[in-house]
């Protein structure tokens, strides 16, 4: 009852090119879909809210992984791209656009923005590109903090943008009805996952991978590095813009605090912990990073119940324990398993491939 590919012999081209060649893999997909449908019926509102943040993070992480994991262009500017997506969505909704159209247009705007900030990548790579994207992040973060999009004031005071109450699906507002948002966001996640998985079976995706592995060799082989780097920035920021738009419709107000440099690092950590250059890895990583604080909170609650910790003191230091654990998780992943959760999962599968008769 193997899920993996040993002993499969392809006889036609179409069977060779299938994404999931074995029948067990297809059953697993069906199982995942059943889980997706059953999950919201089983859990409460709080768990659903966490699930929704995981879904948004997963979409953003897939976008970032296209850029960092597949094309090899390091980006510390994820927060800026999310901010552009979220703020564009909010402003377009203020202009009277329906929320779904606003998100799509915002994603296109984010893609254009990504192209502009991708231009340094034509001259820079490695550490220098990281610094350039960091500068982009800081500039956007500063604009979002200083500029009031509604009345155009620039006096340096912190601003927030209220989301108009037009984010309605079938009478339910997306920022109050978690189940409605779950359905919408899950559809976006499924579409994005399918797009991203199939992207790397086309010549565009292969060109991205060629640029990552060796840009000079890719150019010699006829890949237009200039064009495909910008295309990668555009694709990646389009998907990140979708995530930003979803953040906007999931909130009552948005402010600069949700798009800081820490957010960029958090997303980078997701794809590193999940696995660079893997769509599934982005989802695992997003789930890990977003669920880790909840696990820590549970551990803390148990410890206070046992009387090992003072409850008030614990509430005070909890966010910092969470951040410290997050920093430690980044270092440990890089040291112990640089290929991330995907590699661990693959190792587990290959261990059980011939189980219990492994040699």
């Amino acid at each position, binding site marked *: 009852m193997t899920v993996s590919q040993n002993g499969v012999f392809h006889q036609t081209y179409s069977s060779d090119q299938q994404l999931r060649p074995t029948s067990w893999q297809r059953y697993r997909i069906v199982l995942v879909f059943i889980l997706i449908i059953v999950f919201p019926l089983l859990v409460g509102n709080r768990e659903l809210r966490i699930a929704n943040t995981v879904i948004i993070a997963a979409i953003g992480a897939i976008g970032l992984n296209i850029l960092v994991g597949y094309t090899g262009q390091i980006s510390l500017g994820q927060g800026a791209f999310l901010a552009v997506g979220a703020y564009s969505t909010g402003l377009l909704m203020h202009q009277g656009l329906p929320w779904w159209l606003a998100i799509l247009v915002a994603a296109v705007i984010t893609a254009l923005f990504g192209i502009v900030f991708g231009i340094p990548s034509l001259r820079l790579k490695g*550490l*220098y590109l990281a610094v350039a994207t960091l500068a982009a992040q800081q500039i956007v973060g*500063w604009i979002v903090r200083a500029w009031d999009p509604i009345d155009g004031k620039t006096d340096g005071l912190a601003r927030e943008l209220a989301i108009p109450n037009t984010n309605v699906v079938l009478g339910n507002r997306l920022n109050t009805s978690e189940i409605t948002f779950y359905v919408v966001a899950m559809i976006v996640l499924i579409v994005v996952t399918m797009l991203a998985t199939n992207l790397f079976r086309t010549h565009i995706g292969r060109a991205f991978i060629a640029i990552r592995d060796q840009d000079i060799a890719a150019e010699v082989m006829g890949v237009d590095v200039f064009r495909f780097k910008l295309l990668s920035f555009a694709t990646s920021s389009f998907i990140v813009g979708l995530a930003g738009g979803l953040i906007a419709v999931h909130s009552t107000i948005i402010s600069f605090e949700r798009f800081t440099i820490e957010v960029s*690092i958090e997303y980078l950590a997701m794809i590193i912990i999940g696995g660079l250059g893997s769509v599934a890895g982005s989802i695992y990583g997003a789930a890990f990073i977003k669920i880790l604080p909840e696990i820590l909170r549970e551990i803390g609650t148990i410890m206070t119940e046992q009387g090992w910790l003072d409850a008030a003191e614990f509430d005070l230091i909890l966010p910092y324990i969470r951040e410290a654990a997050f920093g430690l998780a980044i270092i440990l992943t*890089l040291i112990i398993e*640089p290929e991330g959760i995907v590699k661990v999962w693959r190792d587990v599968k290959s261990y059980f491939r011939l189980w219990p008769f492994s040699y």
Partner: protein
Amino acid sequence: MATHQNSLEWRASVREIRNRLKVLTERYPIIANVLIIVLSALLGYFIPYLAAEPIFRTEFNNPEQNFILMLARAGWYSMFALGYALVFSILGLLNLAHGAVYMAGAFAGLWITANQDLPIEYALPAGMLAGGLIGILVDWVAFLPLRARNAPRTSQLISSIGASIFLVNLAFILFIDQFNAPVNRFPAEKVNSIRAFQGTVPIERIEVFGLTLIDQLDYTVFPMQVTMFVVAIVMLIFLQFVIAHSKIGKAMRVVAYNPKVAQLLGINVSLIFAVTFFLSGAFAGAAGVLQGMFRVVGPFMGSEVGLIGLTVIVLGGMRSIPGAVVGSFIIANLQIATIAMGYSWLEEAVVFLALFLMLLIRPQGILGEPLQDRA
């Protein structure tokens, strides 16, 4: 065709001048550095001057006052950025945990004066020692395992970000425990107990050998600012001297050129790396203690200066140690000029705009060599 020929000749002559300057700076590092500092400072005199003059000239916003502020800021930034530039020029990696080391140094200085009740003179050495040791620790935890595996530079960068996040939040948890507040000040009576830190000194005129140079000035100087500038200059010259003339400095240069060759020549490369991280951390710690005395000590004090320090070394040239000083002066000038013109809320934005433009126009920085790391 003729113009092409001319431009080639021009380029060759520029290259020759640059090479001669390079040889000269390597032979007389101290003189070269003093020259660089004096030139940058002179240049910096006019920018705040022009900026402040037309709009608001008040008691606290006049060219001389701005010049003093600029010098203090440049000293602070260059003390911090020297460590960045040192690690980058020897190991070729960006240590984004440098801001956290800076914070740890300030924390150690505070702990030894406030909790251990030692006199304030111990704060600076304690901060430097703690900064150096934590620098080595960061190297062992965040960089050494990755270096051993020959991991790409960018994953070492991310690992240093992880270390930074860990240290900052650990400091927060410890701070709450030790001082019952996340943000603290050095005890004021101790800071004022030594002459150099006493309040402000109004300066009315500058005399050199009994000759009055400038008369009727109306500005005040915090001795702390002077101290910061002087300590920064002393450290810069010390670092240049060590690298140019001592045995360990020569070994450092060999390691920077090629670690494998250095190993073949019998140089203990891991020792050199440890020394590099110690020096870098000690500079950060010193900057942290001095700035902590001037302002406040808190877990997040390193994040802002960390990004500014990054800008500073990109502007000056990441592999160049005098470049860090030049970059500090430029950034300090830009910031003070923006503040003087009445746009103090643009203070941070100016820095990152300068960073982005510099990366677009001249990624290797002002004093940097042409990049290998280009796309």
